[in-house]
């Protein structure tokens, strides 16, 4: 018979989850890490990670996550590839994870590392033309836009990094941003402003994405209400992230107004024995470096909980 109860379940296999797995396995905690596909998380789609300490030359997000995954495997982290349908936290003594095939497992403690996903803008044409010129991943789709003109919507780190990456393929990249300055880290801004293939449309937002079979043009409106049409062959939507909280009983987890889970400094949520780490956690900064730290911290906090709960 398959095992159906664990001391610790880790939900999600991005940087926070993999680090939690590593620490749990080394602490000999009876654990399982659940991930719906291959581990890695959002970083898998990051072209280049230049700010993760210990890698002075930088490395691709793909390579970093391969290293983290093999590091976790070296310590026999128990990874289960399965799709979760929902989480039931009604019984604090036995937290329940229900899978999409309706089977379930329970645990004493749970670390939520479900991460976040790219935001959509929610305009007409976005869903219809997804994969046909509308993209949320520059590193995935840039090679399809060789010698074409594309737009990037957004002004944060991801938008600026991806715009720069896109210029390796596209002939021209236009950044469309709702403000009159970028929000991205200064070093990224310097890189973008020095790149001659990048130009800008400030103080504007997209109201519709249009095209017959593929993206052909965007409808824009500026902050003064002036409307215009802008011809492009692709549009990359990189306007921040939304928490992956669909599976969670959110009302029990004291989310912030955006749906990220609030915890104390030790990653404890309001439910005893439930912790949150990585991008799903309500916080100021979302980077690989703090996701890993929180994953490790959550395991130690869970270990304390397990010891006190079993007394």
């Amino acid at each position: 018979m398959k095992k159906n109860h664990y001391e610790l379940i880790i939900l999600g296999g991005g940087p926070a989850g993999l680090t939690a797995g590593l620490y749990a396995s080394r602490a000999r905690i009876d654990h399982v890490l659940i991930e719906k596909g291959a581990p890695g998380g959002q970083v898998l789609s990051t072209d280049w990670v230049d700010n993760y300490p210990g890698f002075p030359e930088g490395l691709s997000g793909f390579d970093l996550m391969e290293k983290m995954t093999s590091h976790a495997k070296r310590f026999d982290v128990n990874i289960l590839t399965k799709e979760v349908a929902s989480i039931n936290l009604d019984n604090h003594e036995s937290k329940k994870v229900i899978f999409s095939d309706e089977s379930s497992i329970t645990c004493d403690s749970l670390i939520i590392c479900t991460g976040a996903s790219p935001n959509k803008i929610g305009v007409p044409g976005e869903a219809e033309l997804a994969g046909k010129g509308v993209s949320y991943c520059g590193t995935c789709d840039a090679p399809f836009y060789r010698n074409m003109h594309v737009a990037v919507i957004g002004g944060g780190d991801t938008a600026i990094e991806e715009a720069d990456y896109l210029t390796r393929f596209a002939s021209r990249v236009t950044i469309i941003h709702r403000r009159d300055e970028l929000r991205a880290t200064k070093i990224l801004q310097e890189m973008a402003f020095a790149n001659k293939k990048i130009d800008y449309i400030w103080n504007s937002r997209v109201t519709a994405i249009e095209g017959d079979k593929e993206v052909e043009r965007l409808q824009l409106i500026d902050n003064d209400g002036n409307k215009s049409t802008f011809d492009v062959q692709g549009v990359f939507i990189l306007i921040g992230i939304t928490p992956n909280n669909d599976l969670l009983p959110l009302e029990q987890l004291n989310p912030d107004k955006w749906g990220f889970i609030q915890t104390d400094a030790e990653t404890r949520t309001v439910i005893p024995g439930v912790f949150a780490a990585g991008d799903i956690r309500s916080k100021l900064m979302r980077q690989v470096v703090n996701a890993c730290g929180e994953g490790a911290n959550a395991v130690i906090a869970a270990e304390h909980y397990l010891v006190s709960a079993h007394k």
Partner: protein
Amino acid sequence: MASDKVKQLNDADFDAAIKSDQPTLVDFWAPWCGPCKAIGPVVEELADEFEGKVFIAKMNVDDNPVVPGKFGIRAIPTLIVFKSGEVVDQVTGAVGKSQLVELINKAL
């Protein structure tokens, strides 16, 4: 853990592969694409579960420019389900297994 049930198609053998009235699911991917890697194990699981009912295949868009161009693929992973040579439906992005099962069921 590459499943031998998932066949790698190329520009030359693609048309013959999708002609069958048994549905074919094709995962258009590339080695440098993170979400493609993430969805890989799910596609292999589907190959096990739908063995004998659905033909599950992959196509590397780097090595095969013709077919992806023909189907207007501009983002990966894109998964298309075919029946008798016709597109039944498609999804883009690293979606969950249940969404892929839903996609396959449209052709069954």
